[in-house]
């Protein structure tokens, strides 16, 4: 669903659930379908579909999704089944696991980083502390 960070905001019509910038959420946020978060969320996020965390969003939660674009702040572990895209304003404080990743220059990861294979096994575990990179890493 989310091809890149610019396109993702055009896809608000495709999202099943949207949390706007003035909204504060607490609890287990297990959304139906694709989710866009532009507000504050504390607890956990889970979806079988796509997730977009907007530039102004602050998320204090473990995140699990099929694919994700992160442009905001995440304080928690990020577990993505397929592709993860970190925009230049993204900041992740926690462990990241995904199948493939795209990281824009300026994005920050403070935690362990691992790629998993199609069957979900983790491999290439690396420590990524305050990463600022413009490289694309894939399996």
């Amino acid at each position, binding site marked *: 669903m989310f091809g890149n960070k610019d396109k993702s905001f055009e896809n608000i019509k*495709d999202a099943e*659930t949207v*949390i*706007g910038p*003035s909204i504060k959420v*607490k*609890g*287990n946020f297990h959304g139906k379908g694709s989710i866009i978060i532009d507000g504050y969320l504390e607890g956990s996020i889970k979806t079988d579909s796509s997730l977009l965390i907007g530039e102004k969003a602050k998320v204090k939660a473990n995140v699990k999704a099929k694919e994700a674009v992160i442009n905001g702040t995440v304080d928690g572990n990020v577990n993505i089944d397929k592709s993860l895209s970190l925009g230049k304003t993204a900041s992740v404080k926690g462990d990241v696991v995904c199948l493939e990743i795209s990281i824009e220059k300026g994005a920050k990861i403070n935690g362990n980083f691992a790629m998993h294979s199609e069957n979900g096994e983790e491999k290439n575990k690396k420590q990524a502390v305050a990463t600022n990179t413009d490289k694309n890493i894939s399996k």
Partner: protein
Amino acid sequence: MHLYIYDDFLEKSKYSKTINKIETRITDLGLNGKIIRLNNLNNVEGAIWGEIKRGARTLVVVGNDSTFNKILKTLLAKEVSFFLGDIFLAYIPIESSQIALSLGIHSHSDACNILLARRNENIKVAKANDSYFLSQAHTLLKDVLIDIDGNYKLNSDDKSTAYIINMPSFELAKMLPKKIDPRDNYLHLYINSRGISFIPAKKITLSSVDKNYITLDNSNKIELPCSLSMSDKEVKLIVGKNRVFI
């Protein structure tokens, strides 16, 4: 058989021209039926029940949104609801009406043609505590805590309005990021406060520390806490092809 239910306010002389036009059109289309007037009835439920027993199967509400809600409430009452599966509910709006626009009815003359075409949809009715609503409920967001399906709670300091939607009004439908299907067993929470929030849910519970209310279908106000969900009841509505929902 058609049963036309006229509201009290139509007795006023300023409406007589409109009523004459509607009655002429109804006659031209061959849709005549019995007329009952709410101002002559002490027991609306009893009167409608009686007419249904005598064979009325299409109830045509002639009035405004408040009239429509009054009749809907009557239809959903225990005894009458037994017949709901066989009854069609139609609406001829006399004044500007959000419910009529939602159903794709843009004027009273439009309503007569739609009544003739008889396109119908089964629409599920939503429940708020012990009350029912067809279209949407709204409350001021400030100081209200909203629980979604018992999984998470949300709130906002903004003074905007939170809408809980089953079948959106015409105006609201234009603002929503996507079309809603009022037959999908989900309610949708919609908030537009410095950006859109849009959340599908099976059960939405609103609570507030201070005294606060939620308004159902722009007519019925109930005090919080309030739990909203879809009911097991549905009505057969006669709709226009330009209705706002899927």
